[in-house]
């Protein structure tokens, strides 16, 4: 905030912040500009862009592109909005580049584990095998005419692991298109910044401590970049006495607990969103191999080591700052 005050004084820029409930989370947009009413209008336009993404890609809305695909697309090409087409294409590309650790057809397995939690029992092998059979991103075909078709009847698309990031990117596009040079769009911690509050200072983003709700474990300075975090600490499935995280390996169908959290800094919020999930599934050992595909992506892993936590940075160089007591007992 001190930075923001300095900015105001030096450039007479006004600051405007708004918060809405969208995409199942609290989304905030903060922008700087010279005209107060123009700022408000630009921010509302950015929210509208996010709402459009939600309307097009929510699987809970039967009339959305994803709702229609999941009902009708087996063996029958369905025309979708170019934005939906783009996100599906990106999801499949990231799925391929991560060796299936990210998979937009994961839904049947997620639903199986939720059912098991409700019944307080582990899934039977036959149930897992059945659900795993339904996970097949190769069965999602994108045609050149802008249609999408499923080549397997049980396949269901869920863009939940990438759509929020795309919505953030769409909002950023609107703000930049309106000439905004400083701002941030934050969809529940999946966020992207424009510029910096000051020409010499970048945005400082805190990384939540995975085990201490009231603390941060690291921070990072962003400039025209996005960050997203995936972890097993806030959501998950409990079966009997066993706590199973919500991150499920699409290749095995089982929840994974290799890492406590992974934060990914990338050029777009969509990439950060999807890669944070994929890297949390893959774990530290495979990080280099996957991050090799992108020259400008950085990741911070928080992993347990004995009774300590350690932070490990992977990928492109990044100015992560880590809590001094990160190696203390959690």
């Amino acid at each position, binding site marked *: 905030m001190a930075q923001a005050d300095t900015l105001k004084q030096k450039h007479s820029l006004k600051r405007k912040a708004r918060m809405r409930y969208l995409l199942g989370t609290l989304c905030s947009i903060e922008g700087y500009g010279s005209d107060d009413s123009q700022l408000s209008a630009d921010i509302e336009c950015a929210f509208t862009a996010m709402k459009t993404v939600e309307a097009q890609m929510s699987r809970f809305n039967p009339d959305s592109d994803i709702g229609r695909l999941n009902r009708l697309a087996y063996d029958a090409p369905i025309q979708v909005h170019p934005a939906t087409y783009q996100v599906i294409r990106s999801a499949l590309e990231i799925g391929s580049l991560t060796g299936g650790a990210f998979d937009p057809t994961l839904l049947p397995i997620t639903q199986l584990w939720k059912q098991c939690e409700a019944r307080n029992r582990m899934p039977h092998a036959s149930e897992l095998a059945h659900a795993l059979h339904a996970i097949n991103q190769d069965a999602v075909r994108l045609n050149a005419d802008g249609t999408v078709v499923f080549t397997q009847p049980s396949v269901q698309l869920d863009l939940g692991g990438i759509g929020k990031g795309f919505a953030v990117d769409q909002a950023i596009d609107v703000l930049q298109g309106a000439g905004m040079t400083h701002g941030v769009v934050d969809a529940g911690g999946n966020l992207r910044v424009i510029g910096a509050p000051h020409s010499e200072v970048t945005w400082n983003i805190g*990384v939540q401590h995975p085990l201490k709700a009231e*603390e941060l474990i690291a921070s990072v300075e962003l400039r025209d970049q996005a960050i997203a975090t995936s*972890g097993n600490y806030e959501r998950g499935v409990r079966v009997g006495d066993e706590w199973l995280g919500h991150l499920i390996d699409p290749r095995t169908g089982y929840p994974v607990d290799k890492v406590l959290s992974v934060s990914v800094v990338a050029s777009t919020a969509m990439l950060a969103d999807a890669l944070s999930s994929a890297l949390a599934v893959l774990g530290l050992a495979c990080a280099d191999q996957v991050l090799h595909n992108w020259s400008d992506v950085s990741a911070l892993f928080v992993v347990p080591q004995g009774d300590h936590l350690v932070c490990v940075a992977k990928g492109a160089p990044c100015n992560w700052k880590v809590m001094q007591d990160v190696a203390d007992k959690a």
Partner: protein
Amino acid sequence: MPRLIGHRLTAYFAATLALLAQPLRLTQWVVATSIVLTVEQWAAEAAEYYSLEEALTTIFPEADDYQRDDRALTATEHAQLAEALEGKPLPGNPLIYTAKKAGTVQGYALVLDEVGKHKPITFMIGVTPEGAVQDALVMVFRETRGWEIRRKRFMKQFRDKTMPDPIDIRSDITHVTGATLSSRAATVVVRRALALQQVLFGEQGTRISIDGAS
């Protein structure tokens, strides 16, 4: 996280001036200082995202009239709401506005509070006459976050660097990744708003009179 810096300073100086106006012993100063800090902290945490007028015109931009409904809920209405909300009673009386355009109801705006992780968040939920959510926004966010009021030291420790780099988190950190921001509170108020719309207005477009209340 946005903060009302101006309000914080105003509150701080007002409280300090009030204290300076009278002689105090040391113990009283300790108590008094903590009061000032509490005021300062409270003001620092509250962020207003939309004023009432901004919220109404954002949710129903085409309306030309926003009528405030001041009538307290009747016992029957409370009972119906409790039933719709699975036995959870509605806390207090909500602030309700009916948005109209040329006399036709565009929808209802309900101002509702719900505690986030620690403190109440004030939402405005717009509901259409048909009972669908038009929009949901946060008017005031007062959430306390531990990291905002704690000062911790960070250090760079990567790529063979070990440099103490103290950071004042309160002034340096602008946003946080990896923490879910009270979305549960939002789902609670949305459900509450839909139940209120259904019980109070049904599909009539005007408030249903129950128990002979005016």
